[in-house]
């Protein structure tokens, strides 16, 4: 699941919203991220550099590392704690011609038991006096799933993403964006190490484990709407809603509200995010017996769940070209720190570490802190 999600991330990165007709600003970002929760620690750097070449080309490169140390609830109950590292490189190019921006992106990532390659392409068009930007995007992902304990194990996974996006200026103070995305996958979708739990009267605990088995295909559709409003004083309010549905019967609703408040050289942001989803049709916390159904899964992310996130962020611009001080070619620079406090309530995933009698285990709850600090330089 880690690898699968990372690959999605790589695919989706290519679709980051930009305004056609104007190339993105030249910038460099150096970020350190730390995730700590549920027995898992993940940290590492991410470095992004973007630079124009002439008036119609812009290049972007990103290097990203995850250093994972995992003793999560899944690992503790069915496997051994582990550490691993993943590195991802990506290179992209934007080409501006009139009101049209074309973008290509290539991403590759390496892990001890997973390889991923992605190529993506998008076209953005400004229209109606630059009030509207329409973006069409497509990405093709080619993954290879392996097992670290079995060198002969190799399974392919193919992925395609179709996207349509609209950015619309509605009034002098209100901007909106609508994004529609269809993702199709075909291949080895389950985690080669994960197990499902089934009732076993012959076992001392009352249950045993067997490997999970997912369908070989998955298609999902998502529609997201964002609205950002400039308040009567200098501050902004943003609302966001996303509806998600897929062929595994997961249906999700995600909403968030953000408040952005600048003060002198600082910008403060507060955000609350809510997510609620139903579970996959083949998900069970406890199956009635071995091989009870055609497909079987117990990944907690496929369970019905509700998550809540509070975010606090502060950014300080320590260099800007309004004053006399600049650092050579660097015109502007800022440092940003943010903390997201995440809480997930799983509605169908029991905490087996509680050692309770089968059927009366408490439901698992995840609490995690996600910290980021990054420097951004504009030139």
């Amino acid at each position, binding site marked *: *699941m*880690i690898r699968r*999600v990372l690959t*999605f*991330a790589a695919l*989706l*990165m290519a*679709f*980051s*919203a930009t305004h056609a007709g104007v190339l993105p600003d030249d910038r460099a*970002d150096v970020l350190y*991220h730390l995730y700590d929760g*549920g027995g898992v620690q993940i940290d590492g750097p991410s470095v*992004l550099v973007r630079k124009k070449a002439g008036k119609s080309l812009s290049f972007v490169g990103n290097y*990203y590392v*995850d250093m994972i140390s*995992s003793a*999560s609830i899944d*690992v503790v109950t069915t496997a051994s704690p582990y550490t691993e590292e993943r590195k*991802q490189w990506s290179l992209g190019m934007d080409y501006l011609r009139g009101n049209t921006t074309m973008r290509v992106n290539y991403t590759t990532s390496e892990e001890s038991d997973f390889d991923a390659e992605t190529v993506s392409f998008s076209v953005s*068009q400004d*229209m*109606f006096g*630059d*009030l509207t930007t*329409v973006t*069409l995007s497509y990405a093709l992902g080619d993954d290879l799933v392996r097992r670290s304990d079995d060198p002969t194990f190799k399974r392919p996974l193919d992925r395609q993403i*179709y996207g*349509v996006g609209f*950015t619309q200026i509605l*009034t*002098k*103070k209100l*901007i909106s964006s609508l*994004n*529609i*995305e269809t*993702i199709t996958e075909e291949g080895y979708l389950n985690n080669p190490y994960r197990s499902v739990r089934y009732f076993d009267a012959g076992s001392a605990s009352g249950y045993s484990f067997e490997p999970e088995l997912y369908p070989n295909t998955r298609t999902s*559709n*998502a*529609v*997201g709407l964002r609205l950002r409003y*400039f308040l009567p004083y200098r*501050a902004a309010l943003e609302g*966001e809603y*996303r*509806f*998600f549905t897929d062929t595994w019967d*997961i249906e*999700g609703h*995600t909403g968030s509200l953000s408040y952005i408040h600048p003060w002198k050289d600082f910008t403060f942001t507060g955000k609350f995010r809510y*997510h609620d*989803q139903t579970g996959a049709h083949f998900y069970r916390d406890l199956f009635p017996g071995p091989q009870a159904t055609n497909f079987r899964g117990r990944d907690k992310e*496929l369970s019905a769940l509700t*998550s809540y996130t509070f975010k606090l962020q502060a950014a300080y611009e320590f260099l800007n070209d309004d004053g006399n001080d600049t650092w050579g070619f660097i015109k502007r620079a800022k440092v*940003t720190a943010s903390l997201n406090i995440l809480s*997930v309530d799983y509605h169908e995933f029991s905490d087996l570490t509680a050692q309770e009698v089968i059927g009366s285990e408490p439901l698992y709850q995840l609490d995690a802190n996600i910290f*980021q600090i*990054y420097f*951004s330089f504009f030139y």
Partner: protein
Amino acid sequence: MNKVISRTVRLLLPLFAIAALSGCSSIEPWVKPYERDKLADPIMALDGDPVSTAYIQHVFEAREGARGGEGAAGGGCGCN
């Protein structure tokens, strides 16, 4: 697969129609360029921090069953 393709085509057709119309339309922008000072303020940028946004969206994708539809996404930690 056919359903997906037909759904995608249905989605894209109106878009091409809009794109075609835009070439010869005379729709007057109701927010003039000189009226966009507030929209140009950095606090109104829909994605002013692409690296951070990509990272945090990925964290949510790793924790939840839903994905996509958020415009900007990608990068970040995987954490099961």
